[in-house]
């Protein structure tokens, strides 16, 4: 680092030298700040990696096609609890058909949830899930789930939606039961687009009808 040095030669301009050193340090430290700004954003992929490794946030759950399943025999039993929440922005009723179920490890089981649209228009919803305890999500395998796609419910419609899953026999022994929880959110842009389209379709229908009546 540059510092005042007692120099014998008065022709050396210390001030200019220090100014230069200050500029250099300024550049370095500004770059460090920009780097740390980037690091803030890098925490997003790092957090995703962390979640996938630990199963945190339900991110360990695997999706497997039904035909790729293996067969397992004589595994222990475990209780799965089913939980449902609706985000306050969505006017739906959403419930599990059964609140818990005892299954054998490795065995395919099915359960279902029901959703009913209480709003006075069609709404597209999107379900997000989580698994507790988090490490259990690493052993949770789904072959079919309503959370894989967006769900469209017409005004007043009620729908039963299946989930097919199994728990891997590698599940650690200290996990005695697992909770599978869903929260339904409204997909706002999709719902808006849908209802706009419905409105224009209706408008066009009306117009065509009037035209045809006039013709005859």
């Amino acid at each position, binding site marked *: 680092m540059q510092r005042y040095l007692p120099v014998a030669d008065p022709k050396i301009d210390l001030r200019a030298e220090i100014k230069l050193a200050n500029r250099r340090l*300024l550049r370095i430290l500004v770059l460090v700040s920009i780097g740390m700004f980037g690091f803030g954003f890098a925490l997003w992929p790092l957090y995703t990696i962390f979640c996938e490794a630990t199963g945190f946030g339900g991110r360990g759950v695997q999706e497997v096609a039904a035909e790729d399943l293996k067969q397992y025999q004589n595994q222990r039993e475990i209780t799965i609890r089913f939980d449902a929440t609706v985000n306050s922005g969505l006017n739906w009723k959403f419930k599990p058909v059964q609140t818990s179920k005892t299954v054998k490890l490795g065995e395919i089981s099915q359960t279902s949830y029901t959703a009913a649209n209480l709003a006075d228009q069609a709404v597209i919803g999107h379900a997000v899930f989580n698994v507790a305890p988090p490490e259990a999500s690493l052993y949770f395998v789904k072959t079919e789930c309503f959370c894989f796609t967006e769900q469209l419910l017409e005004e007043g419609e009620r729908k039963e939606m299946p989930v097919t899953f199994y728990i891997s026999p590698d599940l650690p022994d200290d996990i005695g039961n697992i909770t599978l929880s869903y929260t339904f959110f409204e997909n706002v842009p999709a719902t808006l687009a849908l209802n706009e389209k419905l409105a224009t379709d209706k408008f066009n229908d009306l117009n065509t009808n009037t035209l045809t009546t006039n013709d005859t």
Partner: protein
Amino acid sequence: MPTTTHEDHHDHKPQGFLNRWVFSTNHKDIGTLYLVFALLMFFIGGSMAMIIRAELFMPGMQLVQPEFFNQMTTVHALVMVFGAVMPAFVGFANWMIPLMIGAPDMALPRMNNWSFWILPFAFSMLVSTLFMDGGAPAGGWTLYPPLVLQTGSSFIFAMFAIHMLGISSIMGAINVIATILNMRAPGMTLLRMPLFVWTWLITAFLLIAVMPVLAGAVTMLITDRFFLTSFFNAAGGGDPVLFQHIFWFFGHPEVYIMILPAFGIISEIIPTFARKPLFGYTSMVYASASIAFLSFIVWAHHMFTVGMPLGGEIYFMLATMMISIPTGVKVFNWISTMWRGSMTFETPMLFALGFVVLFTIGGFSGLMLAIVPADFQYHDTYFVVAHFHYVLVTGSVFALMAGTYYWLPKWTGHMYNERLGKWHFWLSVVFVNLLFFPQHYLGLAGMPRRIPDYSPQFADFNMLSSIGGFAFGLTQFMFVYIVWKCVRGGETATSRVWEGARGLEWTVASPAPFHTFETPPDIDDSMVAHGDHL
């Protein structure tokens, strides 16, 4: 006689208000600006605290609407953290660092001017959100989504204000680092620097490391709200818990940003009034550096209850508790410095002693909070409120008061009124404990924080706390009066001011001339700050 004209020329200040203050590049004037601004913010934030304590004086809703109450807790915290405590320490850095290391000014004087003048604009914007449609942000200073995203039209103004504060802090920090690394007088080696300079150097690195991370988090909030990204939006595949991780990655180092310079001030004052060198100077330096390092790896102790893997809880518990080791070293060294010293108890020393005792209480409640199973009960209760007010008010703010009384004669050339100063200390110390100590009990009994009403069993302690709050608030007008009187006049101060004072700042006249150390001073050991070193 030529000398007088030379002196006059030497002390030549820019003429006119604009030139002197608005365009100032002088470290002393900018330091003064920072300090005055911080004091103003202290009173603005303080008046919000008075509204909070008035509403909590009795159970039931008496004075304000719940939404407004929540705006008060949020804006009070933002103003105190970013407007009062941080700028006050930057003010001390501006005034004292060049004087302590024998430099003529800060390294980058124009940037210094800029970093100060951003602040009034940022805070006008932040405070103006109170008058906007839907009011100021009300989701707490921690800005957790999704709640903060529901703020009314003031959201973007508050976020932009935080961005500006961040930029100001980063520029201030760069300036401090460049000054300390490049501008030291010959002979002022790193391990001869006063501890205040050391702690500020470390603080500046913390600032550069974490303020940009906060800026990143705020930017993500903005894009989530306006550009339909889903960083923190569960419906779109994001996770609100991620925000908490990013925020506290900034937030925990931030609390050390607010306490390390305080450690530095206390380490200057205690040796002066104990008339002994600082015990364990080098261990103080290493303790500060390890506190700073550890502060990066403990952040999740603020989020034990979000549902972390068990291994994570245990790791963050143990890492957090480890911080109390270097902190303990510091407290031990302060006490050893006083051991068998010839102590006198002028106001700066009283505040410093108050700091040592009361900050340590805050450290102990911090340790209690670090115990995971206990924190499940304490989290989001008044126990947390008591903890951080002990470390921040009787810690950081007491250190700021101590430092003001200590260097005020150097700044103004006059002695302050010692009798009033002592009154200010004793009233403050009694009322601040009346204000915050009962909050420990409230928290242990389960009273949640950030709630405008409470059930009747909490009534007595809340009333005591409110009375302490009003009295503490009123007492601070004494501080303004004492400082004002001291600026205007008073007994003339000598250059050394205090019998036991050591360090380069005491070798210049009082008040410190407008320009100092234009030529680097010759340093001998008797001028170097307290340290049993070398």
